[in-house]
């Protein structure tokens, strides 16, 4: 398919998930701005970033949703999984607890996305080798057992950040080529042409309006 009057052929929706403080927002920032944002404020909500990349000569716009990791927001952030073509699941190699929680994040992802969603496991902060709390081998084994792609990366140095985002896109693109990803399915997370970011609760297709019209205002 050609880019036509638009400058990109596809839009892929990504979500970034994982415990609070593992570096999700820094990864997004590093990817979109090529900078490390050391004093990144806590994400209270869902941040949004975009970048155009090229896969096999096709321009693809990535629409990336960076979610809040706090447990208390878990119920709300679940509604953002819907329609993600890629999920970047992040833990912090210097904090074991963030690794231990992966199975719970994975369960959510599997339950809330569709089978063709590409899940990429990122062990972040690999620049802090001295404080390592999770070995490469065991995480790699975990990834293999669960059929996830995996790298260790650093949002600080930029190591492997580009790769993680791009590899995910390549895999999604492959799925489209193989016909494994049905573009017509409403929740494939891939769109053919540009549109406003969508797929959030309340504004999802179907045009549901806010439930209460607050006519008092």
């Amino acid at each position, binding site marked *: 398919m050609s880019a036509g*009057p638009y400058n990109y052929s596809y839009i892929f929706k990504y979500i970034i998930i994982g415990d609070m403080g593992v570096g999700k927002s820094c990864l997004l920032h590093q990817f979109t701005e090529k900078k490390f944002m050391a004093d990144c404020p806590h994400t209270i909500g869902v941040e949004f970033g975009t970048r155009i990349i090229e896969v096999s000569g096709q321009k693809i716009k990535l629409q990336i949703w960076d979610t809040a990791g706090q447990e208390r927001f878990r119920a*709300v952030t679940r509604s953002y999984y819907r329609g993600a073509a890629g999920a970047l699941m992040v833990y912090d190699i210097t904090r074991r607890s963030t690794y231990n929680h992966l199975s719970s994040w994975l369960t959510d992802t599997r339950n809330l996305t569709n089978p063709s969603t590409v899940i990429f496991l990122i062990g972040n902060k690999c620049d802090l080798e001295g404080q390592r709390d999770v070995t490469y081998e065991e995480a790699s084994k975990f990834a293999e057992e669960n059929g996830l792609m995996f790298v260790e990366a650093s949002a600080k140095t930029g190591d492997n950040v580009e790769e993680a985002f791009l590899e995910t896109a390549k895999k999604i693109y492959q799925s489209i080529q193989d016909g494994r990803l049905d573009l017509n399915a409403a929740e494939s997370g891939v769109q053919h042409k540009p549109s406003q970011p969508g797929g959030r609760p309340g504004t999802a297709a179907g045009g549901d309006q806010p439930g209460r019209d607050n006519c008092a205002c």
Partner: protein
Amino acid sequence: MLAVHRDVVNIVQAKFLSAEVVKSIHLNVSSLDGNWCDEGRILALVEYNKTFALFILISAKPKPVSISDLSIETVIPIDRNFSCDTEPIEDSQCHIIFIITYKKTKLSFKIEIGVESSNFASEVIRSKEVSSHNSPVFVWLDKYLGTMNQQNRNSSDLTEQSDLPITRQHIAQGQTAINRESMLKYQLKLREPEYTQIQEFTVFVGTWNVNGQAPTVSLRSWLSTDDDPPDVYAVGFQEIDLSKEAFLFNDTPREAEWNKYVLDGVHPKAKYRCVALIRLVGMQLAVMVNTQHYPHVSNISYDTVGTGLLGKMGNKGGVAIRLQLHNTSLCFVNCHLAAHVEEFERRNQDYKDINARMNFRRSPLAIKDHEQVYWLGDLNYRITDLTTTQVKTLLARNEMTTLLRADQLNQQKERGNVLLDYTEADITFPPTYKYDLNSDTFDTSEKARPPAWTDRILWRGKGIHHVAYRSHMDLKISDHKPVSALFKSEISVVDQNRYRKIHEDLLKKMDKHENEYLPQVTIDQTEIIYDLVKFREPQTKEIIIANTGMVPAEFEFIKKLEETSYCKDWLRIIPYCGSINPGEKCDVKLIVNLESDLDRIYDILILHLKGGKDMFITVSGECQKSSFTVSMSLLCRINMPILRLSKEELIQAEKNNLLYSVPREIWLLIDHLYRHGLKTRELFESSALHEELIKIRDWLDHGSLDPIPGSIQATAESLLLFLSYTKDPVIPFNLHEACIAAATNFQNCRQIIVTRVPDLHRNVFLYICLFLQEFLKYSNDNGYDAKTLASLFGDILLRDVDRNSKPQASRGKANFVYNFLVNDLSSSIVPPK
């Protein structure tokens, strides 16, 4: 919005007529022109009759104090040719470059990032949007144009369209028409000097009208007389074949023959490769480059235009080849214009037609759009007003100036009729037409045509330095002599490494801009904790949403998946959606009002920005128990005011035995009404003060030895509130339908009350009805009749699940209650167990 500089705005406004309204200004602007930075500019956006213009004013003081401090530097109408953009400054966090583009004019200003700049920019953008919907008329600007200097006036007056830069705002908004690619091209062009360097290429251009002759002699003496081999050859012929076949079928063996001689004739010290060979009837053009340059040639395209017979045949006209050499676009045009001395106007027309009709496939550029154009050929302009003899005499005397003054091309060019903007080198060679064949003698035939410089080479564009312009007398097979010109031309050569870096840099920037131009807001707090939340005592908390981004932010509270509303029913959000301009703020009120029995309130609100991120706002608070919202069953199991008991004790109390047959609170309220209210007019209809109700609530919930506070009407309203909010309605929901159905018959109604309504609820119901019967005995004093009371209490005793919408089946409920107000109830009363 203007409040910031109200005083300055007034001074600026004084520069204009009163109908020309200064909408927005920006102070302390520096105008950037190359390396220059002129401080003390003020930008002003002025509106007149729905048209807008941007004025750049020079201010004598940083903050002008009088109208004489100001003068107008430039005026730019805001129409479809106008666009604005911003660009970050490498090493500055607090300044930004504000770029105004109008047609080919580009003005840059350094401004400080802040509220003023974003307000100003958004005003300008808005006015631009308004202007693109209608076709504005700018006659009102004429008077100001007169006050500007000439140079600026021209710049706003350009008729030629240049590429319109696309504002970044549009990219961010994902507008479908935005072409990232063309934006990128535009930006790359702007930064060309950074990734290219100029290299001089030798360009040899030759033209020869061969008068239908076949080649027989080497062309070396024409094509390779210079010491060094040129980098580029453009060799044009006219009249290579005068046969009918060539004319009618545009097919001739001469093409290959002449081309072979050209290839043999090029400079022996280099190897050449043909870029393109093109022919129309007798006009032929070949462009060759030194083989080493060939990899840097791209976008080759060509076309032919016939202007001969019928205005379209190929006996006259032009052929052209365009190409890109490294990063510079080149165009070579070989023409053969109309013949005959007196036909100079026809020649001018041919020239115009060639320009208008030359249409390169695969390139949107016209001839004139190329950075360098080389125009060659038999232009056929003659020497006028001189006889053959006079010309020959002047030539013999070497009076070139006189002769050249009589040259039609020079004359027509001077008048702007042809080859405007083209340059020709000084002619130092004798006329190239018309010679006797195989000689250097001018036409000795009967016609004895006066000699003329029919064969010419001109150029247009930047960086072309001519080295030589000459004729070649050695080639005698034609009645024309060949001409050649040698140029040193500046070609912009791309440094691939630098190009890649800048290209990537631009892509990054565009991504960055796109992200920057996402709507951005901050909220001052994301965790709202209310003080102790009490029944029907609203609390308001405010959050401030500030637009910190570059585009207007449209916000809206949206509902979570699987919820029906964007907030719980104990909360109201005002406003729950809106739009905030950059730099502006919006206060949003979050009003909690508790009307049900909750231990605590807790919710996560989603504040969504259209086209951007979502933010979560947590609202929470502890709630105070109230007798108004718990169940009557609980109230009948506790022997003291509800707030004297802890939450644990209350849970425990659910299992206690019933201590009362009706809740203490109801008894207290009704007892008070019985004693003091039976004769009060409008007892149930005058609304009490909110504080009175709160006091009564606290009196009931905390308990007190004081008498019940507030007016008697407040007590009456409290009773109604109590009955409306109590956890389960007096008549349980599931019986409402049966009650309404039975309403026409008292015995049926009584049956429901006696057999189907739970004991406690029956007690309350009858207790209230008995009180109302008592109350009706004083109808003359209080003015109530049974019907009124029945309809008032019907909706309350049989309240709907949804308390906030209009009551359902009010009439049926009233009829049901009416039965119990006008009939003897003694038989309905079941003695307490």
